[in-house]
């Protein structure tokens, strides 16, 4: 299983614990992730301001991957959706493809058929498979109560994702987390957005959206949140303290990436998984279960 690893902008600069744990877990599972240094932004952040630039950026990244004959595995949900949309769009619009190729030619590249774009969680679920993952799990996380946050662009727009999961009743992350022995906690508003994209526009609204979910998760009695996107992590992990201050409350909910949860169950230590880089402290919450060394 060989993929070009698409990191995007946020992960290598701000969420290195996600990159670190994803690489470790992939290595353990025999996934070959190839780095392509020329990758640029996926285009998602400029969609709102300039759809055309977003298309050019996405197509450039995909053409780089195509040149090396590799499918693309992204860690960030927004990168996954932006790049998948480009493949979807260009497969149905020859004129747009011709225009994009005119630009790409100046960079010595050509977009032909595009490549398969996959989120790492989807690769784990569909291609590596639960049985294979289970073989590598050595430490049970029994007793740990985890609330999954799917976020939006991991699942939506569903028309570009071949219904690999159900938008209104998602289950892939629940099944992956359940492999570790942890209890998957259900809660209201499970499908709701983290509010991240509104952050540069209206901080108050953005934090209010994130707060609703934190309230529900605390109410459901979870010890930790599991997620698969660095934007969502910014809202729940980096901004948790800010939300606590703004709304005079306390959550103290560690926010883990899926690859950190799986890595813990594989017996990896805190440092290997970058757990020391999470903003909300994970040590005490996890000490009872795993990786508390």
């Amino acid at each position, binding site marked *: 299983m060989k993929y070009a690893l698409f990191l995007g902008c946020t992960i290598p600069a701000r969420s*290195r614990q996600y990159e670190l744990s994803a690489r470790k877990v992939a290595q353990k599972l025999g996934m070959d992730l190839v780095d392509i240094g020329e990758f640029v932004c996926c285009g998602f952040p400029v969609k709102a301001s300039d759809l055309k630039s977003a298309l050019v950026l996405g197509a450039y990244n995909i053409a780089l991957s195509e040149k090396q004959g590799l499918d693309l595995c992204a860690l960030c949900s927004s990168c996954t959706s932006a790049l998948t949309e480009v493949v979807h769009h260009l497969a149905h619009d020859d004129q747009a493809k011709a225009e994009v190729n005119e630009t790409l030619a100046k960079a010595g590249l050509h977009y032909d058929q595009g490549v398969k774009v996959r989120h790492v969680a989807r690769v784990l679920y569909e291609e590596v498979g639960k049985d294979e993952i289970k073989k590598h799990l050595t430490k049970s996380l029994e007793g740990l109560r985890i609330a999954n946050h799917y976020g939006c662009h991991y699942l939506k727009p569903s028309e570009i994702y071949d219904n690999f999961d159900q938008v209104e009743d998602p289950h892939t992350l629940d099944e992956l987390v359940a492999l570790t022995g942890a209890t998957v906690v259900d809660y209201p508003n499970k499908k709701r957005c983290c509010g991240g994209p509104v952050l540069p526009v209206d901080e108050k609204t953005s934090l209010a959206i994130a707060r609703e979910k934190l309230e529900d998760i605390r109410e459901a009695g979870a010890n930790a949140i599991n997620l698969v996107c660095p934007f969502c992590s910014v809202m729940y992990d980096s901004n948790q303290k800010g939300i606590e201050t703004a709304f005079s409350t306390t959550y103290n909910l560690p926010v883990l990436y899926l690859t950190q949860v799986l890595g813990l169950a594989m017996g990896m230590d805190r440092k290997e998984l970058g757990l020391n880089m999470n903003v909300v402290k994970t040590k005490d919450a996890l000490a009872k279960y795993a990786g508390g060394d």
Partner: protein
Amino acid sequence: MLKNAHLLRSPHPSSLRRTGMYVSLLGMSGALYLSVFEQAGDFERLVTRHCPKERFVMADIDLSKADPNFRKELLAHPEGEKISACFTCKTCTASCPVSAVNAKFSPYRIIRLALFGLKKEVLESDFVWLCSSCYACQERCPQGVSITEFMTLLKNMAIKAGHAPAGIRAQRDLVRGQGRIYAIDEFDNKKRNKIDLPSLPTACSVVKVLFPES
């Protein structure tokens, strides 16, 4: 009230004038509804009880500034071609995580304003930027309107017309100028190497080729 409610929803240009009349009447007092309600003001009380005032977002629409060409312009875009199928069921607004915490934002109202041709109100507003592009509305729209894509189209048009929050413009300029939102410098690479992550390029020259105009 119920007899005339459909006029509020009808986006057809031929009914715009009549709709405008009713919209302005709705905004006045309960006088029109004396035959249904016993006292002037009953209607407003009913509306406020079942639908908080800030949620009753159609009454303040001023149709005198409607520009029918704006509607045509929107329908010509692939992201906007399906909006005329909207029948104002408000599933979008009910599903919207932003509307749930900030009543200023309401997808169905934006679609209605757009269909009425209220170009200035839509493109110069601050509310189109509140869309989080989460696709909750689009996934649930019973009429198959690509609401999230439509919001993106409106944002693109607004920024072209010179109206966009500074943060959004800054994101665009960063990405088009350096290929990334967060440029990687030597300090970042040092931190990456320390935990055995590979170095990443600290410069990006291809953006000059991809975006020669910026």
